[in-house]
């Protein structure tokens, strides 16, 4: 799912050295805008995703909902979540939210990933899995605050939405955007999308009577490259468990932000120690060579050839 030829890489999972090409070329941060207030749940984006990415069909079962399946899957990266939202005051809404990878600015999956180069973040913000480097440990699954990466037990690899990095690299919009009939999906630079989203949210507040309308772009993970306009941004949980304050699990932040630097610091200390040792103790001196003791192997047992 990679397109290293056209997109510049900004971060690489578990990569020890510098990132090749980092900062060599400035790329605008991209962003997908999902206006849930004009989504009609038609699933054109779901179909476009399956078809563009050539994913195998799977058997689904009726589950008392219009939703195609309970959650995204390794071969189903884009799912509209349908929620019947009944309020105590009698008001009712049918909320539909396109659920897919949020392409976090600070991706928990990438932080969690121990395999060198299995997850990369391009400098345009897209977080992409490189299945050829994936070791199938599923740490990314635990690292994701949105429950996005999905494991394929057959290939033992993890998959998710690529924000169509292959299309974006070629100057096209993601397949879901292209398929959306109502224009509730937009794609462009993050700045432009934020501008559009905020405008729409203020229209919803001022004209449509949604006083809590707002934009979902959670700063707890440095913002996302997929943002939502919500009728009620104060309660994103109503839209199929969209977390109000998504966080990368502590273990991974501790790992990357504390233990990993400590480890690196330890390693550096060791190196400094070695250098100091050289400085103060000088190079290793030639030691007298001990006498060579020759041990012959026992002869093979005779008469047993096969």
């Amino acid at each position, binding site marked *: 799912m990679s397109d290293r030829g056209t997109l510049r890489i900004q971060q690489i999972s578990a990569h020890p050295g510098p990132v090749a090409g980092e900062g060599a070329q400035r790329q605008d941060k991209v962003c997908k805008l999902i206006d849930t*207030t*004009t*989504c*009609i*749940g*038609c*699933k*054109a984006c*779901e*179909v476009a995703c*399956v*078809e563009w990415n050539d994913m195998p*069909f*799977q*058997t*689904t*079962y*009726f*589950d*008392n*909902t*219009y939703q*195609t399946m309970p959650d995204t899957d390794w071969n189903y990266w884009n799912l509209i979540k349908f929620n*019947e939202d*009944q309020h105590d005051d009698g008001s*009712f*809404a*049918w*909320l*539909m939210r396109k659920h897919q990878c949020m392409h976090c600015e600070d991706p928990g999956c990438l932080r969690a990933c121990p395999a060198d180069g299995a997850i990369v973040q391009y400098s345009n913000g897209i977080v992409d899995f490189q299945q050829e480097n994936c070791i199938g440990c599923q740490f990314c699954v635990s690292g994701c605050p949105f429950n996005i990466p999905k494991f394929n037990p057959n290939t033992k690899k993890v998959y998710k939405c690529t924000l169509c990095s292959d299309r974006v690299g070629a100057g096209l919009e993601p397949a879901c955007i292209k398929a959306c*009939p*109502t*224009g*509730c999906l937009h794609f462009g630079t993050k700045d432009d999308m934020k501008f559009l989203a905020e405008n*729409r949210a203020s*229209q919803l507040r001022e*004209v*449509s009577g949604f006083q809590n309308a707002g934009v979902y772009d959670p700063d707890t993970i440095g913002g996302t490259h997929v943002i939502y306009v919500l009728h009620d941004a104060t309660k994103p949980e109503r839209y199929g468990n969209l977390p109000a304050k998504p966080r990368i699990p502590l273990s991974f932040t501790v790992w990357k932000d504390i233990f990993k630097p400590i480890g690196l610091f330890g390693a550096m200390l060791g190196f400094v120690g070695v250098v100091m040792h050289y400085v103060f103790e000088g190079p290793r001196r030639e030691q007298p060579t001990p006498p060579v003791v020759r041990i012959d192997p026992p002869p093979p047992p005779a008469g047993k050839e096969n």
Partner: protein
Amino acid sequence: MTNGWIDIKNTDMMLIMGGNPAENHPCGFKWPVEAKRNRNAKMIVVDPRFTRTAAVADLFCQIRAGADIAFLGGMINYALENNRIAKDYLVNYTNAAFIIKEGFKLPEDGLFSGFDAATKIYDKSSWNYQEGGNETGKAVPVSAAATPAEGHEAKAAVVPVSTAAKGAASTPPPPPSLPPNIAYDLSLQHPRCVYQLLKQQYSRYTPEMVERITGIPKDQFLKAADLFTSVRKNGDMKKVATIIYAVGWTQHSFGTQIIRTAAMLQLLMGNVGRAGGGVNALRGHSNIQGATDMAGIFDILPGYLKVPNPTDKDLKTYLDRITPKPAKPNEWESFNYWSNTPKFMVSFLKAMYGNAATKDNDFAFQYLPKVDRNYSWVNIWNDMYEGTVKGMFAFGMNGVMIGPDSQKNIDALKKADFLVVCEIYPDETSAFWQAPGITPDDLKQINTTVYRLPGAGFAEKDGTFVNSARWLQWKNAALPPPGDCRLDQDILAQIFLKIRELYQKEGGKFPDPILKASWAYTLPAHPSLSEVAKEINGKALADISDEKLGISLKAGQQLPGFAMLHDDGTTSSGNWLYCGSWTEAGSMQQRRGTEDPSGLGIYPNWGWSWPANRRVLYNRASCDLAGKPWDPTRSQVWWNETAQKWVGNDVPDFKPDSKPEEHMGPFIMNPEGVGRIFVPLGAMADGPFPEFYEPIESPIENPLHPSQSTNPVVKKYKTKMDKYGTPKEGYNIVCTTYRLTEHYHYWTKNNPMNVELVPEPFVEIPAELADQMGIRGGEKVKVTSARSDYIAKAMVTKRIKPMMVDGKKLYQIGMPIHWGFLGISEGEGRTAKMPANLLTPTVVDPNAYTPEFKGFLVKLEKV
């Protein structure tokens, strides 16, 4: 649609009712969303369920299925009571000021004047205008003024007259016609002027009555009525409201009248003919509009010419019968465009029979079948069930599945001699003998010979689609038909050629219509659709010229438009409405110009829309009397004083040089020239004003007139299969049927991607009802109607609420129609292999003959 898809973006207010465009027209639904986003337009959705469309609406009202006329009638009453009407428009562009003949009676008791209980047919002679002239301000006895409060007096006054009319009906009177000089009262005060009758008629549709009938709480109805009519606050004409509907309105035993009510409301508010306004039918298939235009209905010929009947002994009799004469106040003008009917008809006959159609033989008028009975859908199947129809060609539809009462249709096919099905999948119709419940012994009794012809899918054919906006758009074939499949036009052509060969060899009673039919295609067995399209457009058969239009054509040249059609046999055109779609300049349908100078979404160089590439019908009405647009920011057409003609961004739908002073009506297809709030004479079978009637299967008695609960002219079918349920028998849940975004009728159940999206049929059940019955989501339920039963899984939802209808608690349920007994999930045994239409009743609208799929009665039980 009077307007078009893109035009919806110009609106300020949408009433979406009897349709679920987000579900069924997701691509077109872009435009309502644009209107919301870019114009702050409001959207009101009225539906039995909280739908995908309702999910993005500003206001949603849950209505009882079939109560639409009560809701819209209440809206009319609200607009009248609160002066939310377009006064100038109403007086000058509609028949509001026209005076109706004495003897006409409003249906306070459920019946208009002239009803014959024995035949269930109205004598419509009293549904007519009064002959006269300008009665403005004259002779209006105050005591007789029909104000709502005096409704009873008015009733008492007219009843004896109506009885007299009934008596007179025994001797057949000469066919009534519209008076040439209609009496009118511009002050709208005459007690029998249309406006006063309208007021009186809908004064009964109070908010309280609307609540009793529709189940929509009064305050919510008032909110909707206030919001919708707010575009006409203080008589300001700038804003525009649109009404958008689909088969949720047509599929009732009073469907045509629902649409009439909407049209009346729009005329009352001055919304017809204007950008962002109109009455907009969303067509449910990609080419349904084209099918209708090209006579996919038994009682019309292409271009909505009426079909001849046995009384039409020659062309002249026929043309006299169907060509309307102007009928208007003397002081006004009427274009009466249908006066050109003879030109359309003769050109059609020339297209049908070519050189065999001559002046001497009435242009081969006698070759056309004279239709002597009702050949509408349900009738055909009823006739087959009764054994009079012996065979059927089923092209482009799955007959067993789409009609009401699937079991009756299956049983009808068992009695047929032959069935020919052209499809791209093996469908339930061609496999009717595999329907559930048919045993091997039954199978031995079925002697129907079934021929399956593998047709081509839409992407395998070129040709045009005509969309809801009347746009003819050419498409190219994406790939050839696979395997042995053949293009549908090839199949039909080869059947025709074979039949003609048989007639040539063996003769017959009347071989000429077949032998002499024009078949001038380069490859007769493989007619190219571009040749057919050119033939439909039509050409000059002799050198003709028109000085006024400044056009002269050589024989053989394509016609530039229907203004060039002649009734002397010098032109041919397969459908006058499409004349102009393939001219000497080439195929207008293939144009792909994306320029839109006005910004109104007119795109004049994209494809071609009938009539005459006009995007909004009746657009003269977008201007005031002087010919200036009501809203200059949405200028469609206007009167150009210097040029002395109508010009504009759109093609004016008007006589181009008719000065505003001439007072020509904008509704040029009516002989009156004005919009009909009151429909005179026989145009409607069931009344000149819409009246609310209960569906044939209804949970309550009609609160307006319990003695005449249902539509009086609706006829029920009489075979043993035609059963209708009542609440007394325990059928007390209202059920409705519909489609899903994820599926296309009965095709996509063969396609894995669609099946993945929605794998199984279901029944949507209100959560409260499910709780009462102990039904959990995913459990199987059985829905039983008087016809049959249907088993599927329950979808327990909060999107359908219980409602209070006429003081009684009522539940509604609904089900999608997409599954049958052939398909992927059916094959895997994951569904119950049942068509939803097993449940629906065989009863039809008396005007359009559309079955009542929406709002029938069922019982519900857990399996």
